[in-house]
């Protein structure tokens, strides 16, 4: 394989990985604060795809994009309020089952409202413009995705480590009750976490679907699962971990496709999950467990 082709595949892989990373961060943040695997996250991502389909049919992309982002954030926060908040003191299994329920609800709601036929994803001409850098040529979105991902994750880490709300998020993730005793409104902090997770999922969906061109009610299911794997791979609860996990999956899948094993590209993700769970269940950046009496 010549070097330029190799680079081209790497670029594709990193770009796919960037979109995965943005979604995986949503999983990991919600897990960090609620110890919940938000199985509906992939479907929020799918709904963001539909929001764009409808928004861009009646307005230009620069208006449609913020509307999609806001609508997705509202959807994510509403789901938290309706399906997870009433179960705050319930066993963790109940809230997880609720998440699975929301996932099916969204998939079937989308089937009912928009039919199961794939809809064409709007072509954002600006993002589709072909760029040529040295021997590499790809659409702008392929170049932008990894850069945007890194920038967003960087900002997010700054927010979590250096702002008041970030400090509250870390406190709530450690200990609900003591956080309440400090006067933190934990429901507000949890809503904020879902808002950020959904915002990133919406951005991820724009980047992802611009490359895929169609949206259908189950188009969030497999990417959702894969991004969950990415989050576990990186060490669930860790934001840099989720990002690294996303990039590993994106690169791995693309490498398999490039080698002609595209049939196995999905299997690769889950084999990686199994191997990881056997040998290092806490993931690459797994949470440190500091037990002190």
């Amino acid at each position: 394989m010549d070097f330029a082709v190799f680079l081209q595949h790497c670029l594709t892989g990193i770009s796919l990985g960037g979109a995965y990373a943005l979604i995986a961060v949503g999983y990991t943040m919600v897990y960090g604060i609620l110890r919940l695997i938000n199985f509906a996250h992939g479907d929020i991502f799918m709904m963001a795809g539909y929001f764009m389909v409808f928004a861009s049919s009646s307005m230009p992309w620069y208006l449609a994009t913020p509307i999609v982002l806001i609508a997705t954030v509202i959807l994510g926060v509403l789901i938290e309020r309706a399906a997870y908040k009433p179960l705050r003191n319930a066993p963790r299994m109940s809230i997880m089952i609720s998440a699975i329920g929301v996932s099916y609800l969204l998939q079937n709601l989308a089937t009912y409202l928009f039919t199961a036929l794939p809809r064409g994803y709007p072509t954002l001409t600006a993002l589709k413009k072909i760029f040529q850098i040295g021997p590499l040529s790809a659409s702008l979105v392929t170049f932008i995705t990894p850069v945007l991902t890194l920038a967003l994750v960087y900002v997010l880490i700054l927010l979590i480590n250096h702002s008041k709300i970030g400090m509250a998020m870390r406190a709530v993730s450690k200990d609900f009750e003591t956080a309440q005793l400090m006067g933190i409104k934990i429901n507000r902090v949890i809503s904020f976490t879902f808002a950020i997770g959904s915002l990133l999922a919406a951005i991820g969906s724009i980047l992802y679907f611009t490359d895929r061109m169609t949206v259908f009610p189950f188009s969030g299911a497999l990417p959702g699962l894969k991004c969950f794997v990415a989050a576990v791979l990186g060490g669930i609860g860790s934001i840099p971990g989720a990002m690294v996990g996303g990039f590993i999956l994106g690169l791995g899948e693309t490498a398999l496709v490039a080698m002609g094993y595209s049939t196995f590209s999905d299997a690769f993700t889950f084999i990686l999950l199994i191997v990881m769970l056997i040998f290092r269940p806490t993931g690459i950046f797994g949470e440190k467990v500091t037990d002190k009496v």
Partner: protein
Amino acid sequence: MSNDIHLKISNLSVAYGGIQAVKDISIEVPKGKIVTLIGSNGAGKSTTLRTIAGVVKPKEGSIQFNGEEILGKSPDYIVTRGITLVPEGRRVFDNLTVLENLKIGAYVHKHRLEEDIEQVYRLFPRLKERAWQFAGTLSGGEQQMLAVGRALMSRPKMIMMDEPSLGLAPLIIKDIFNIIKTVNAEGITVLLIEQNANLALKIADHAYVMETGVITLEGTGAALLADESVKEAYLGKRKE
């Protein structure tokens, strides 16, 4: 007289998953005093404090703070009224630095943060040395100091402490009790729960004995120290 009563609990009952943990208790905490609640494990002392702080919802009763009914209010509202709880087992945020733990104690207000932090450092110089460490790396005694410092950051009028001596070495317990007295001397009312009844009664102006959810005895600290039944049950002295 009622002006001097800071906290007034009347006929409070709390049930926890079907078990009646607190049964119809009434407690009064005068302003600027140290009041202690002693009793064995499971007597309902912690439940009482957590109910005052708003994290446990009671079945019935009334809790008035400076004449205002705070029962049923959210924990964040109660903190802003000037009540703070140092929880049992310290519960510092071990994933936050010492400084961040202090800052989060002041979460509900933002005035003169630096000044308050300096004040806490004066009280606990050790915390200043360790400001950038994660709280999880502190020793038990240091964590207890941090928990108290964190509570003071909310500028409380009344501080409640749940078993501050738990799991600490005797020398450090002495430090902690000195700190309680210092805090009180600055005009902050203290409501203290202790299993170490001897120490608690010595510093308390007023004391209540709690057994299986009810108040069985009350009196000044000195009076309870001298009481035969208290001696036998909590101070480890036998009747002849």
